[in-house]
């Protein structure tokens, strides 16, 4: 074997070794995920029935249900999206299409990136101080949704900016060249073209909001709720808090309830993600 052949053989071996490591990584991740799913399904699948989905929580595990958390989560997600999406897209459009690329712009950009990484409990504390106490919104659905909006807004802004930035500059020039205003260019071209990617960002952000527990515990969402929120000022609970509450009980029956609620929460997230994928495929044609 001469020098070159030896070298080539070494490279081949390295190539294969790397491939094996990559596959192992994938298998490990899949294994953990499957284990988790299996455990949850084993414990909770027997609890999924109409009674469980339509009952309020109870001291008796077999009579307890998740309706308060499910409806609370649904309301909170809708309200959070209604607040965070328009503001987030608006901010991103301003930063990309209007603001000058100067020092101030760069400072804002870095700050938004940092905000996206701030631990959620910090947003909870902010919500507690700002919305619950200062605005006197109490531990209401509105206060919770506003807090969640703050939490996901940086994610929406960053995703929207990325989407807008990927629109070819030729499209902007072509639009301006026939006498479009900036607003017309943004409305007729920039937003429609970037819409599929923006949507993906929004859904990811909302999926995050569904799973967050800490900020809402901080602002004082209730853990034992036997009514549905009537209006924006109602107190409320959400699925993750319900799960957290049940998991902390010693009885095995409540553990099964928790597993059942986790299955519903997973299904909810999966549903949202599927909708996002379907919409994205439809619009990017």
């Amino acid at each position, binding site marked *: 074997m001469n020098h070159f052949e030896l070298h080539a053989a070494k490279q081949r071996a390295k190539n294969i070794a790397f491939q094996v490591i990559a596959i192992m990584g994938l298998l490990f991740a899949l294994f953990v995920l499957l284990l988790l799913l299996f455990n949850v399904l084993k414990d909770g699948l027997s609890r999924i029935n109409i009674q469980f989905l339509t009952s309020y929580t109870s001291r008796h595990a077999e009579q307890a249900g998740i309706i308060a958390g499910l409806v609370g989560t649904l309301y909170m997600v809708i309200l959070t999206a209604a607040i965070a999406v328009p503001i987030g897209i608006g901010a991103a459009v301003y930063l990309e299409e209007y603001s000058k690329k100067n020092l101030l712009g760069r400072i804002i950009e870095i700050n938004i990136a940092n905000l996206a990484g701030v631990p959620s409990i910090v947003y909870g504390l902010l919500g507690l101080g700002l919305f619950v106490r200062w605005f006197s919104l109490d531990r209401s659905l509105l206060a919770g949704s506003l807090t969640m909006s703050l939490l996901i807004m940086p994610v929406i802004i960053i995703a929207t900016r990325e989407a807008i930035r990927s629109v070819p500059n030729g499209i902007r020039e*072509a639009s301006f060249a*026939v006498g*479009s205003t900036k607003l017309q260019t943004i409305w007729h071209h920039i937003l429609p073209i970037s819409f599929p990617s923006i949507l993906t960002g929004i859904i990811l952000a909302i999926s995050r909001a569904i799973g967050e527990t800490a900020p809402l515990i901080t602002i004082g969402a209730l853990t034992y709720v036997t009514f549905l929120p009537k209006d924006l000022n109602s107190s409320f609970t959400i699925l993750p808090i319900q799960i957290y509450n049940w998991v902390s009980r010693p009885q095995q029956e409540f553990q099964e309830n928790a597993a059942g609620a986790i299955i519903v929460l997973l299904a909810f997230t999966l549903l949202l993600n599927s909708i996002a994928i379907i919409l994205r495929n439809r619009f990017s044609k």
Partner: protein
Amino acid sequence: MNKVETKSVNLFYGAKQALKNISMSFNENNVVALIGPSGCGKSTYLRLFNRMNDMIDGVTIDGEVLLNGKNIYASNVRVEDVRKRVGMVFQKPNPFPKTIFENVAYGLRVNGITNKRFIEETVVRSLKQAALWEEVKDELKKSALSLSGGQQQRLCIARALAVEPSVVLMDEPCSALDPISNAKIEELIWELKKKYTIIIVTHNMQQAARVSDRTAFFYIGELIEYNDTKEIFTNPKHERTQNYITGRFG
């Protein structure tokens, strides 16, 4: 009257001067070619006429750019009105990801025209003017992105013509096209100059010689020579011009 003129125009990108004291005038129904090596300022100069340089941060412009005697950089002029009167075709075909029909109709719609009949007639007329009608008349509802590069560029020309400009700017319109599409566009330029004043930037000397009535040679932000195309190519006054057109530099 489609007279276009610049008077002592200086343009700076930040501190760097890209155009130095340029005064030129363009006759109507003429094709003027702007030539010169890369970075000489010819594209920047072209973009003065529809104020495309406004989009870039840090650009300052002094001097006057006159369209029919009126300075288009005056503070009471709406930039959108300028761009309606001065159409532009870009180097890379840039159709909108919409139907062929909507691409051409777009300029009318954003300018507030809603009359369906008028829009349809204008789309047909513009596509005919751009020599594209015969190829697309049965598929106006198809996406513009399904067209070939040469067809896309003619669609972009139709889109520019639909708003009835008086001046058409072309920034290397053939550089991304094959020779056959190139020839079609050149033929089209000959047709269009009956109605429009055309200013074209090109890196292709033969193209400049074939399509233009007058030619301007730019070098590092300065206008070196501006004369009848025949004169420029057969009897250039400046050594730089001579060297450039014969391919000795640039």
